[in-house]
């Protein structure tokens, strides 16, 4: 007897799980960036620029 494949079930391969977790990381990074600007837009523009690259330290 042939087994029917349920195409409505989400894929749970390791590749798709990895892709999903990468998307979660990318979304979190985008939100963190947006929040950083919300918190620092009151700074003088040149000071904000300097502070932006200090984050890489």
């Amino acid at each position: 007897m042939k087994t029917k494949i349920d195409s409505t079930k989400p894929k749970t391969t390791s590749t798709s799980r990895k892709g999903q977790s990468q998307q979660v990381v990318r979304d979190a990074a985008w939100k963190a960036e947006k929040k950083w600007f919300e918190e620092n837009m009151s700074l003088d523009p040149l000071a904000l620029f300097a502070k932006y690259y200090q984050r890489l330290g």
Partner: protein
Amino acid sequence: MLPPVEPSVFLQEFVVSFFESRLLSGFISVDEYHDTVVALRRNDAFAPTSRRLFENSPEAIHLDGYGPLRIIELREPDGSRFPFLQGLTKLGPPDRRRLTCFVGHRFLKNIEQSLRFNLVHLLSPYGIDLRWSGYDLSARDVFDEIVRGIKSADLCLFDNLGTLNRPNVYIEIGIAHALGKPMLVCEYGGSAAGRRKKVPDTGSVPSDLQGLLRIQYRSYQDLCRQLYFNLPLFLARNELH
């Protein structure tokens, strides 16, 4: 370093272009962008700060509480120079593990001398060391060396300037993609003056590759700005810092 234009005009245009890139990426609103442009125009301290930056270049100057800034001189492939504003960390390169970036590009002397010079200045202050691609993919051991180089790198950067009928960079992009490496792919689109014409000596990069930041540029000045403005987010999105 002699400024190409009035220092405050250059600096204002540079900082505005930074905020414009943040606007277009959705991180600040239209109102915030315009408020920033007005604030720059009305800031009395801006002109003296701009002059100090150029007079001290390439030495950094310190803004109270917000870390050092400096003006450096970067290079176009034709050997001409352009100024670039850089924000530095207070303590120099980070203490954490340094990252390695594999760089692939066409091996022409003018590209080597300008692109490598620019990338070292843009990336090394933030703990990113560069590893260059080999010279000739036809040699089997060099090909293996390139695969090893990409495999051991934390991220890759490829520039397709001058690569028409020279597939090496595209092969390297494919290897990096297959290995799941975060990639910055820089695609030359012709100079602003000749934008309508097809660039005779440059191919194009597939747009549907996942996990890469594709930067389309018209000059190395344009490339350096786009690369630099998007670097912190690129590193965060790929969990590299």
